[in-house]
């Protein structure tokens, strides 16, 4: 379980997170929605220690993110897929995927590569194993990013706006893969702008507004007119996003 308690995060004088409490149970798929600057990306970055915590606590299966030794365990349990892919440009697709399994999990090169190939096959990139990231399209890069995360056998998959850098066609191919993952029962925490995607895969939807959780509801309730939508701020956000998505 990921347990976030009274999380505060300041960047200088700017308070981005103002006391967030959130529990995520194994097997759950939770989408974090919210406007730009609502603090949703910062929150997900706090979970694996990429941002330091100003006050409050985060624990993952009992491991405290702020403890240096524990943080390594947290990072083994949580794999992140990044908005800008952030692949290692000098390594082949396969080496991108096997670097951490070999050096962190202690897998042999052969086992790591077998697993990597299997993952690449599952996202339709088995013919790109020896390519470099610069030779791939955005959608292909992000599929490699997903494989790199899954190669660690994570208990939790953190998705930080994974489709924001992609055009609609590439977005669709990446979302298709994530939908399948969600069905397989992996725990996912997804920060996203894709309302339809959130609606399709999530068990729960958390809405962040100005650094606070405005609502934390099961998906159906969140989208119900007398549920989440009853809040004017959420209604406004949803209508703005659907307008935007229609245009795109």
């Amino acid at each position, binding site marked *: 379980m990921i347990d976030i308690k009274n999380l505060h995060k300041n960047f200088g004088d700017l308070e981005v997170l103002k006391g967030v409490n959130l529990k995520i149970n194994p097997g759950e798929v939770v989408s974090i929605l919210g406007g730009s600057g609502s603090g949703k990306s910062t929150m997900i970055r706090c979970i694996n220690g990429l941002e330091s915590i100003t006050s409050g606590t985060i624990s993952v299966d009992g491991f405290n993110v702020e403890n240096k030794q524990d943080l390594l365990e947290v990072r*083994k349990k949580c794999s992140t897929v990044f908005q800008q892919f952030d692949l290692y440009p000098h390594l082949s697709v396969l080496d991108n995927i096997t670097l951490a399994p070999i050096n962190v999990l202690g897998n042999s090169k052969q086992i790591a590569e077998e697993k990597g190939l299997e993952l690449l096959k599952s996202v339709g990139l088995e013919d790109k194993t020896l390519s*470099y990231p610069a030779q791939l399209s955005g959608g292909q890069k992000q599929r490699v990013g997903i494989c790199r995360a899954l190669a660690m056998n994570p208990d939790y998959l953190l998705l930080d706006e994974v489709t924001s850098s992609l055009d609609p066609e590439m977005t669709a191919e990446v979302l298709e893969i994530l939908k399948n993952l969600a069905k397989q029962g992996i725990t996912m925490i997804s920060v996203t702008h894709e309302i339809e995607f959130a609606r399709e895969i999530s068990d729960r939807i958390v809405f962040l507004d100005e650094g606070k959780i405005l609502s934390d509801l099961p998906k159906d309730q969140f989208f119900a007119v007398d549920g989440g939508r009853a809040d004017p701020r959420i209604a406004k956000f949803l209508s703005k996003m659907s307008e935007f998505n229609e245009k795109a």
Partner: protein
Amino acid sequence: MGYGAEGFSIYDLQLWAQGLGLTIWIFLISSILGLLIGCLIGLIRSYRVPVIGKLLMVISEFLKNSPVLVQLFLVYFGIPAIFTIDMTPGLAAIITLTGNTAAFIAVIVISSIDSIDKRQLEAARSFALSETIILRWIIFPQSLSVAMPMLVGLAINQLQVTSLISVIGVIDLTRVGDIINQRTFEPFIVWPLIGLTYFILAKTIAYVGTRLEKRFSAYRLTNEL
């Protein structure tokens, strides 16, 4: 004036070979030591080690921005005045060139590490990779590819700088040219030949450097889709 110009002899070739050998030797040893020390300084600075990082940068600024000949005199005449060591011209040459090379290498190391996209390092950390692994497998190979052209340029420059050590009496290639010239009075034969020797050495470095550069940069030469 009883001295007349003497012609070239077979011993001049031997002298030339000895000078060439010494120049290559001093160049190699000071380049390798300079590379190691320079990398260390660069890393200390890049990882923002307090105090010592700043101090090393002050020293390297001095070495970069003062004439090598002055540094050579400082080492050759200065160190024996303070410490009781037997300072030979060869040792002074190696110390000076090593220090000077290290100062330039440090700057190259820092700027090539800076040029790496930092987000991928964050990604690597998020997968629990240790800083050592990140340095070895992510930072080092990419920095090397960025640094290679600068390192080749520096090596060629430092090769030419070795000729300064002839001033304190090291019998390097330049000093050999001087000796032969004084005996034969054939400056237009001696110096072009000496110059040609440096030229060939420099071109060899450039050739090897370009080959290595291509190998380290394979991932960047591939076009975007």
